[in-house]
């Protein structure tokens, strides 16, 4: 057996979608640093197309770049970390899909063109990494939020609007928006001010999704969360807080 056959055999053994050679498919010089910084040194890390990151190839507005992560093709996803290699603050969001589908829609600020990646940890302890390049003229992280310049947001800080939709294929979709300036701390004179934690549970209090937010989430963030039919509930609750300890609490009714 020559070396190529060996690699092909190894790839087959690892399962579908897993690249045999573990070179970065996005060819980013920052990948090594990202791996070292965010993933445990001893962990098995593979690039895996089953972790889908959907974002526009060209983002017109660097302050509000839509991103959807979908790891539902992977079994037993415990947590997902989303990061952008070239952002001054690389970490964007981390989530644990307790009972929700292992995916999340959100929007981010990008400082320059960058890979946007999601690393999903499965029950066996391995990390599966997917991602896509997003091109942008940039500047999204060092600009002040609209909210920081307006007295209005203080009255509405932490306000949640939301809605629940039944999904054709079963289950439900929840979309929710939180009023928050999400300042990165990189604009002169404006300290970091962002949502650190959001927990979605059903009406009985059983957890569905734990979200840990970081500075690059976009202002007034909007989240899209899908709930499988088995966990659809009569109502839902959101609890969270920002880095200044302000509480975020809402009941989501249908």
């Amino acid at each position, binding site marked *: 057996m020559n070396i190529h056959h060996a690699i092909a055999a190894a790839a087959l053994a690892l399962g579908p979608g897993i690249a045999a050679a573990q070179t970065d498919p996005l060819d980013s010089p920052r990948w090594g640093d990202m791996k070292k910084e965010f993933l445990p040194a001893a962990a098995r890390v593979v690039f895996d197309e089953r972790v889908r990151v959907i974002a526009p190839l060209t983002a*017109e507005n660097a302050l509000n770049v839509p*991103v959807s992560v979908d790891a539902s093709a992977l079994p037993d996803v415990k947590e997902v970390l989303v990061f952008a290699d070239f952002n001054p603050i690389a970490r964007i969001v981390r989530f644990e899909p307790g009972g929700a589908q292992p995916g999340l*829609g959100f929007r981010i600020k990008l400082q320059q063109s960058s890979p946007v990646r999601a690393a999903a940890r499965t029950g066996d302890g391995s990390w599966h990494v997917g991602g896509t390049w997003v091109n942008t003229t940039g500047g999204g992280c060092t600009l002040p939020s609209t909210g920081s310049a307006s007295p209005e947001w203080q009255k509405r800080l932490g306000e949640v609007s*939301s809605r629940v939709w039944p999904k054709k294929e079963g289950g439900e*979709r929840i979309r929710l928006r939180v009023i928050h300036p999400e300042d990165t701390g990189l604009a002169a004179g404006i300290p970091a001010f962002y949502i650190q934690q959001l927990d979605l549970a059903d009406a009985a209090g059983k957890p569905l999704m734990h979200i840990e937010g970081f500075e690059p989430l976009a202002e007034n963030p909007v989240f899209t969360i899908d709930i499988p039919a088995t966990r659809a509930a009569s109502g839902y609750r959101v609890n969270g807080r920002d880095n200044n300890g302000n509480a975020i609490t809402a009941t989501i*009714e249908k």
Partner: protein
Amino acid sequence: MSAPARALIALFALGWALLLAAADMDYGLAPEKIADDTWVLTGRSEDFSFANGGNIVNTAFIVTEAGVLVIDSGPSRAYGEQLRRAIARITRQPVVRVINTHHHPDHFLGNQAFAPDTLAALPGTIHGIHTEGGSFNDNMYRLTGDWMAGTEPVAPIHPLSAGPLELGGHQFELIALEGHTGADLAILDRSTGVLFAGDLVFHDRAPTTPHARLPAWQASLDTLEALPFRHIVPGHGPVAKDAGPIRQTRAWLVWLDHTLRQAADEGLDMTEALALPLPAGFRKMAVADAEYRRSVGQLYPAFEQQALGSGKARE
């Protein structure tokens, strides 16, 4: 050869290179006569780029016995200067009025080339240039590079109001509308039947929506369609002799409004709204895909907000 001599030659070569580069910054403006006394400079149906230098816009001028009226000054100082020279090749009449139809950069960043006392616009446009002109200008440098050399935003000093305007025998009607921006001026020359629609009307080029309010824009199109015009000069795209460009712009706006509202109401994430297909009928419009993507980014958050507002969440 000594080091200083080499440096001198290098400097000399660099100087020549810069001169040649500057000479390349030629928009090749070619005014086309579309009616008596009336000339239009049609830009490319493209996005801003280093190749086109921002010349994606239509500008126009009317030569009257009391001087020249210019409608929009183009995307840069260089464009404004070349527009002046193009006018001077056609008439000895001086430019007495330059009107900016609205505050978007490709319509006013050539103002520097004209005497400050000639510049005029609706009050909302003047305000827009004061508040957003600087960031537009910065953005144009990023998008088109050297073409912008020396360009700075200049806001008109003369506020215009709706109504008739007589100039050198031409009876103009100034029509103050809104929807593409907060202040959109259309100008009907009753003497020639030419309607200068500004960016309320696009033709075979998808409309841009950074400041759009779609219902107001559609109402403005109804106003324009009712006017007695024989030629229509859109803000972008070829001149036409019928209401085709108005209807095409309306069809796009109606579709955009309906599609994004429905997407938000069905709970689509923004990435899913971006992936929706464009109707085949819009394929002939230039940059349709890119403008749709931009419009989703600009308009979808408000539709989402509306859709979420009709759900229930309480403290």
